[in-house]
């Protein structure tokens, strides 16, 4: 039974959320309580499958899953002339890590959402789209097929756009969703053009197959530019960040936390293309510096735009942009020295590990921060910092969770943000000291900004209009507590996490030949 589950886990990760999503409208007609139980059941099963698959992948190495074959291991059918013709999921350590992030965040956010969104109407559609979003994220991070990547990207974009517009809010949320949707569609079309270029050139859509045939011609360079531009837009990096504040601030808070994970999935796609599809064939120094510059711009512009914001969720959205910059910086430095083994060993791997560690940390603490903002909105009905104050008296647990999230994002020692940022500082300093200094200054500005936010939300005397405000309901607190516990655990035992999860992921990402061999067999 266990063997069956592990063997079919990559398919189950897509199948479970999809069945859950399509059955939710029927089950929702029976009773809201049964619908909530059903959605939680599906999400629990998905999370367990992701954890099971991840434990197997970290133990036994890359696992592939061939859709539509008699046997899920049969990547290259005997009569196909050596070409993997079917859709293949290739789950290596990096994919498994992203799946775990998606599953844990999804689970925590769902617990929170069951109580936070209870008062709204149309919840069957809400949870249908929520589960479709999970399916889209899982598909994007598992797939080993470029066209399939595009399909899951579209599933994710459409589900997200629907959810951003969910609370109409006088048309403002619809406007944000429209902006997101138009930009996502443009980005997806750009990616489709790039995929068309690969298909015309190499007669293949499988990532491993294209990677093994990669020539880095002029056409490949054009395709690379298209894909980097589109995916950097999707993950909210600075010159293309303009959809992020609108979408993040107008979506319901539970969805905003999932949008953070969705952005990370796009970031994963960017890294996958650069490291697995091209690897050393591209001019690593140039492309590495492009990603570094995108990262530095995101860091600086994001944090400086965050400081004057009055809306707490807009402020957090700009911080999300800024934190994405750290991941781009770390992994970009790793890319810049790719192919140069001594430099790679001395700081390249650590930079990549720092960047990847920051992905998981960011998903946890930023999700936590957005959930606390949602809890505050749930009780007082505003996101405006100028109208808040004194909530520390009545919402103690929310305040504690906010402190944990804020200290983690600012990189203060006992929390996880410090662990990944320290790895990024150290390795980037060895590469180029100026970049490390910028990264530290941005961290200090982040801390300054969150001190201001903390003060205006929680400090001061109790305001008369919030006299009757109570603590957020227990399910919301449990959802936040799950994320807060991970933030603290990862901060207390960073070395164990890095050795156990992050280093295998970083090595899997930079090991192109291993990825190709897993699919095409011993090449």
């Amino acid at each position: 039974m266990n063997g069956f589950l592990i063997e079919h886990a990559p398919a189950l990760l897509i199948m479970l959320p999809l069945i859950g999503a399509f059955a939710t409208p029927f089950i929702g007609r029976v009773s809201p309580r049964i619908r909530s139980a059903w959605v939680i059941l599906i999400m629990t099963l998905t999370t367990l499958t992701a954890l099971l698959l991840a434990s197997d992948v970290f133990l036994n190495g890359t696992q592939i899953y061939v859709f539509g074959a008699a046997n899920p291991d049969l990547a290259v059918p005997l009569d196909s002339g050596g070409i993997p013709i079917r859709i293949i999921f290739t789950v290596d350590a990096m994919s498994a890590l992203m799946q775990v992030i998606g599953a844990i965040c999804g689970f925590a956010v769902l617990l929170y959402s069951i109580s936070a969104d209870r008062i709204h109407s149309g919840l069957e559609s809400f949870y249908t789209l929520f589960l479709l979003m999970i399916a889209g994220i899982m598909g994007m991070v598992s797939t080993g097929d470029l066209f399939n990547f595009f399909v899951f990207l579209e599933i994710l974009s459409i589900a997200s756009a629907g959810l951003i517009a969910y609370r109409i809010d006088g048309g403002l949320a619809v406007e944000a969703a429209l902006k997101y949707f138009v930009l996502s569609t443009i980005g997806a079309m750009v990616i489709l053009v790039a995929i068309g270029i690969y298909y015309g050139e190499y007669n293949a859509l499988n990532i491993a197959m294209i990677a093994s045939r990669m020539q880095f011609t002029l056409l490949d360079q054009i395709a690379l530019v298209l894909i980097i531009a589109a995916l950097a837009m999707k993950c909210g990096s600075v010159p293309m960040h303009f959809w992020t504040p609108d979408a993040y601030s107008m979506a319901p808070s539970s969805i905003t936390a999932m949008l953070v994970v969705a952005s990370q999935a796009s970031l994963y796609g960017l890294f996958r293309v650069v490291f697995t599809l091209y690897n050393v064939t591209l001019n690593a120094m140039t492309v590495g510096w492009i990603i570094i510059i995108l990262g530095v711009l995101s860091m600086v512009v994001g944090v400086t735009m965050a400081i004057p914001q009055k809306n707490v969720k807009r402020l957090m959205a700009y911080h999300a942009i800024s934190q994405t910059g750290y991941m781009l910086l770390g992994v970009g430095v790793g890319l810049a020295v790719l192919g140069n083994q001594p430099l790679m060993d001395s700081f390249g791997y650590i930079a990549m590990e720092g960047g990847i560690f920051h992905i998981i940390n960011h998903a946890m603490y930023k999700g936590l921060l957005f959930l606390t903002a949602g809890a505050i909105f749930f009780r007082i009905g505003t996101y405006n910092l100028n109208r808040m104050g004194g909530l520390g008296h009545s919402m103690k647990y929310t305040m504690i969770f906010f402190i944990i999230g804020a200290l983690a994002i600012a990189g203060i020692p006992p929390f996880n943000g410090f662990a990944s940022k320290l790895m990024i500082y150290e390795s980037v300093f060895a590469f180029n000291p100026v970049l490390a200094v910028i990264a530290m200054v941005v961290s200090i500005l982040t801390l300054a900004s969150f001190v201001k936010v903390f003060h205006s939300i929680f400090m001061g005397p109790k305001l008369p209009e919030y006299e009757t405000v109570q603590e957020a309901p227990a399910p919301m607190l449990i959802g936040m507590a799950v994320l807060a516990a991970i933030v603290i655990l990862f901060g207390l035992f960073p070395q164990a996490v890095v050795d156990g999860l992050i280093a295998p992921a970083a090595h899997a990402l930079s090991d192109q030949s291993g990825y190709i061999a897993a699919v095409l067999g011993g090449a």
Partner: protein
Amino acid sequence: MRMSKLVRTGADLLYPFALIFGLYIILHGHLTPGGGFQGGAVVATGAAIVIVAWAYEDVAGMIRKVTMKAQESAGLLLFIGAAALALGLGYAFFYNVLANSGSLFGLSVPFGPNPGELNTAGVIPIMNIAVGIEVWGGLTVILLYLLSGLNKKEEGS
């Protein structure tokens, strides 16, 4: 406001033909150009003709949003179910378990030119039917929402 009696009667006459043509395209998806999506769209066009010719209120009782939404979800569940069937039998997800099995849609295609053997291709026709049901429901719901304000009152009144 409804359109003239001529148009309404024409729409009534066209509706069953649009329905049958759409179902034909869905069922022959594995043999001829088209398939579930295209056939479902043709069926939904039939609904569009009727709504435009009559008024939304006249049609709403016959083509109901609730039914169409249920149809959409049911089609999707059938699709995933057909794909998951293979898992239960020990093959990979989406494996074509019915092809050449001799049962439903399970005949093998004879050699040489033939007029089209409907009873072939395994789960592919089932998935076409599932997508057809889903698109029929989904597009009709979209049309119902889009056209719900149509023919309500005269221009400028």
